[in-house]
């Protein structure tokens, strides 16, 4: 595609040259001429409904008023924005908008940052001629659990409606009635449940849509604004933290055209009450007898140091384990692995979804590849294969980008997931495989791709897999597999993305190799990506929070890396690979005598692990809250959250971004992670040279070759991607053995997954969102539920050889027949049913509650 010729026009007597297709309003902005707008928004299609932007454009019949937000520029166009007619129109428009706009400004959360206020001051008539009473409409009207609508304040600009249509593709708001009675309302009485629906609050030009979680908690003129990034998922959305009196008051989106455009999801926007929660730990706790009692830092740290030293002397360094967290910064994690490797002398260091997962080191090539089709030519990706990953629940902003890429950029989706996830609504091949049959399905895809021609690497013998295997083992129609493979093989550039759900457990490596084969034979080896799901999943791997990798993805016997670390740290490094996260927790109380857990809560994942933690000689937990794990600890060290200390995070496309300190409670005794570890190291006889987090950022830049130059000041507000070519990733073709049949023979295949509204510790402290949490539930296909005589809300017993859970049934047709979906982070923990094979099955029975029994007795009596 060639770029069209630029266009030159005159605005207010000044010439400007802009690309063809630019709107007059944007051309004026290039000259710093402000044309007032309400309905126009740079990220939304023009509708020209508010009439605020009327300007004079010369035409064959003299100057005519036209809407600057919808008229594209033309050569020789003459525009005037400063004539009497334009001014009179602007005044009249504002007078009309204000006719029924209530004078709520003192109690309106938008007051102070309200375009209607600002433009009335700049362009308005100054007086009101209205003497009649204003129209009354619904105020304080909840259109979801988190968004409040005030219909009186609305100026009918359509921005919210257009956002939900154009970006979310969920037309959940619409206009009703007509004339002056026009109102915005939800469709069919259903609340707005789009996962990024909160963005309509940011783009509303008046106070019609306000944030229920932050309601009345701030006034725009008194908050401090700190540019930061989100701490929830691995997209790393840019956002702004608004604070006042050392508490977090509000979170809003911040533009980064490489990452999140300007949108953020509702979890990032609303689920942040935990930061300034009353439940935060403020003092170190030490177990004395049965009780955890508050003690001084000196006492707590000395206790940890003494006990670690004696356990190391008695049982050796490999009896100690360290667990980091993908919720914490690069600095915290880097220091923890340095502590474990240098001072304790063990490679027992891992994080959840770390060594247990068959990951790839470099993540997505770039998020912008998926964003590009919507903004311009030169697409970097034309097909996306999502394998065992559900962006709608796991990475909502990726979901938003994909929807837009499909609808505006013509990108095709291929989805392989045991659940018929939301993105399947865009058609394209859907492969609803049974858990445990992934390797077979991938062999089928490779075979079909080779049959369809493949690319340069297609010299491989096709895997031996038959259509019958696909139908019987995977539960997938072979025709769909063929269609999917042909689409991928026929595309120029396919992004192949998989997540922890597919990569976890015993079959993870086979799936990774299978995906590698598919990427190789279709010429997409550089576009095969693993996406971790937590804010710093990528950073944890980069920092070496892995039992078999040093910082920078270096192998344990990589002499060059060892020398580099020796220069920085001094001393020798342990050679033997350590235990992974699950191995450490399985071996707790057995081979592992002491665990240092930083920001993880394994006690909620499996009952067996909770029990094992009780058997440890020493459990140290560095946490924000007294979690289930911390409650079992011998020592609890109170730490600071991502908003309270400087830190860098690396997102799923390897972008290293800053999260600076935005607030800190002046009364708390809690300390940043680095300081706790630094003092502990000191008490174990090693002096580290750090004065603050940025010193560690600088050391990381020396310890990891591809982080060179990524210092605090260099990162800036938009972050920097490290170069994927620094970690060469050229997969070989590896034949993948396919399991004969999924092992266990039970009625239902068990599917687990991450839910966005997970009800976890970072979620449930936001009271307004509690109703939205997925907790203690099991999703069943309605047909299966009918066969089991289970209704929505019934209590189920879900059991297999390893355990038994009581869960509430929810009917959901995205769940395939013969499967049951249970969220990962729930209570009771689904981990009790898992054995790590990835092919678990369960039996389900209805549990009769007392009430039901009574009702049945009554109905039988009649």
């Amino acid at each position, binding site marked *: 595609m060639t770029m069209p010729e630029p266009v030159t026009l005159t605005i207010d007597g000044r010439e400007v040259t802009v690309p063809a297709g630019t709107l007059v309003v944007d051309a004026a902005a290039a000259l710093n001429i402000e044309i007032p707008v309400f309905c126009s928004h740079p990220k939304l299609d023009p509708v020209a409904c508010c009439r605020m932007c009327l300007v004079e454009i010369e035409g064959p019949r003299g100057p005519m008023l036209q809407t600057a937000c919808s008229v594209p520029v033309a050569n020789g166009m003459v525009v005037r924005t400063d004539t009497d007619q334009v001014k009179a129109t602007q005044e009249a428009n504002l007078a009309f908008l204000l006719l029924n706009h209530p004078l*709520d400004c*003192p*109690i309106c959360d938008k*007051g102070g940052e309200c375009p209607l206020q600002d433009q009335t001051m700049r362009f308005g008539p100054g007086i009101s001629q209205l003497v009649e009473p204003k129209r009354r409409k619904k*105020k*304080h009207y909840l259109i979801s659990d988190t968004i409040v609508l005030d219909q009186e304040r609305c100026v009918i600009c359509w921005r919210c409606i257009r956002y939900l249509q154009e970006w979310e593709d969920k037309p959940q708001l619409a206009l009703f009635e007509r004339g002056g009675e026009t109102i915005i309302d939800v469709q069919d009485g259903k609340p707005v449940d789009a996962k990024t629906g909160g963005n309509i609050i940011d783009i509303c030009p008046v106070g019609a849509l306000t944030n229920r979680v932050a*309601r*009345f*908690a701030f*006034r725009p*003129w*008194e908050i401090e604004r700190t540019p930061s990034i989100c701490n929830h998922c691995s997209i790393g959305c840019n956002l702004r933290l608004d604070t006042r009196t050392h508490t977090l008051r509000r979170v809003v989106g911040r533009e980064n055209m490489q990452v999140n455009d300007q949108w953020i999801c509702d979890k990032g926007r609303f689920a942040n009450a935990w930061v300034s929660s009353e439940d935060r730990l403020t003092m170190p706790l030490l177990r004395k007898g049965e009780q955890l009692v508050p003690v001084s830092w000196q006492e707590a740290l000395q206790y940890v140091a003494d006990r670690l030293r004696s356990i190391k002397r008695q049982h050796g360094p490999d009896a100690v384990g360290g667990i980091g967290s993908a919720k914490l910064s690069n600095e915290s994690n880097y220091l923890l692995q340095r502590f474990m490797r240098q001072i304790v002398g063990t490679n027992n260091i891992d994080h959840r979804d770390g060594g247990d997962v068959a990951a790839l080191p470099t993540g997505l090539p770039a998020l912008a590849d998926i964003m590009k089709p919507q903004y311009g030519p030169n697409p970097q990706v034309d097909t996306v294969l999502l394998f065992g990953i559900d962006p709608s629940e796991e990475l909502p902003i990726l979901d938003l980008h994909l929807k837009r890429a499909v609808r505006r950029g013509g990108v095709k989706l291929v989805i392989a997931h045991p659940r018929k996830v939301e993105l399947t609504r865009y058609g394209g091949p859907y492969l609803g495989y049974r858990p445990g049959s992934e390797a077979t399905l991938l062999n089928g895809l490779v075979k079909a791709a080779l049959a369809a021609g493949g690319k340069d690497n297609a010299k491989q013998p096709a895997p031996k897999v038959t259509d019958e295997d696909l139908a019987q083992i995977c539960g997938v129609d072979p025709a769909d597999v063929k269609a999917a493979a042909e689409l991928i093989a026929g595309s120029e550039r396919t992004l192949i993305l998989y997540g922890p759900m597919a990569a976890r457990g015993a079959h993870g490596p086979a799936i990774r190799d299978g995906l590698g084969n598919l990427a190789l034979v279709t010429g997409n080896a550089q576009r095969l990506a693993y996406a971790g799901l937590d804010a710093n999943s990528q950073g944890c791997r980069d920092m070496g929070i892995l039992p078999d990798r040093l910082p920078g993805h270096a192998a344990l016997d990589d002499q060059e890396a060892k020398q580099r670390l020796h220069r920085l740290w001094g001393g020798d490094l342990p050679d033997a690979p350590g235990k992974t996260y699950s191995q450490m927790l399985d071996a707790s109380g057995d081979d592992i005598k002491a665990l240092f857990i930083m920001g993880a809560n394994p006690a909620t994942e499996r009952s067996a692990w909770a029990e094992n933690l009780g058997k440890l000689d020493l459990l140290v937990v560095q946490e924000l809250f007294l979690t289930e794990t911390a409650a079992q600890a011998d020592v609890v060290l109170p730490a600071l959250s991502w908003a309270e200390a400087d830190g860098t995070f690396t997102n799923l496309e390897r972008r290293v971004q800053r999260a600076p300190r935005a607030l800190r409670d002046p009364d708390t005794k809690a300390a940043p992670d680095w300081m706790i570890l630094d003092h502990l190291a000191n008490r174990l006889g090693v002096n580290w040279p750090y004065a603050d987090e940025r010193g560690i950022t600088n050391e990381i830049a020396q310890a990891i070759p591809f982080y060179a130059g990524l210092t605090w000041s260099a990162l800036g507000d938009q972050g920097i991607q490290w170069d994927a070519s620094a970690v060469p990733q050229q997969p070989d073709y590896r034949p993948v053995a396919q399991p004969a049949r999924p092992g266990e023979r039970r009625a239902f295949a068990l599917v687990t997954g991450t839910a966005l509204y997970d009800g976890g510790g970072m979620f449930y402290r936001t009271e307004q969102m509690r109703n939205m949490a997925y907790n203690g539930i099991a999703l069943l296909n309605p047909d299966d539920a009918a066969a089991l005589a289970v209704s929505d809300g019934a209590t189920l017993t879900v059991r297999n050889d390893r355990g038994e859970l009581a869960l509430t049934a929810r009917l959901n047709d995205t769940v395939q027949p013969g499967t049951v979906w249970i969220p990962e982070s729930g209570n009771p923990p689904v981990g009790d049913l898992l054995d790590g094979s990835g092919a678990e099955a369960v039996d389900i029975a209805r549990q009769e509650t007392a009430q039901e029994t009574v009702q049945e007795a009554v109905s039988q009596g009649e």
Partner: protein
Amino acid sequence: MALTDILKDAVELGKAMGVTLRHLRERPVTVEYPRDSVPLYPRFRGRHELRRYENGMERCIGCMLCEAACPTGAIYVEADENDPHNPLSPGERHAKVYEVNLLRCIFCGDCEEACPTEAIVLGHEFALADYERRDFILTKEELLNPTEPNVIIRPE
């Protein structure tokens, strides 16, 4: 000392005594504070008070405009949402916390000017000495319930 000087002094003394004697017949200009007090001008600005409507509802809606207007940062407000069944003030919003730090206040009256509901006003109480620094921070309860309500609404 010459005789003329003595005479001069006597005259001066006489003049001075004249003034004293003249004022003996007049009312005193000083008052016996605290037993008596001087009358205050209507616009005198003393200790703050938060007013209510006749029906007992608080006028303050927690809009924080007084806080924004205050030149010394003496006012601290936290707003909250009204319980629709039991509202503290008309509308959706009320002040959950309203504090005035009298040590910072310069009694300029800008808060009064900024208030859209005429809720915060400066009253006529001026005897504000106290023993503890902490006691100089007036809470919402103290502001809403002055010992002697004495509020003049100024016409501007």
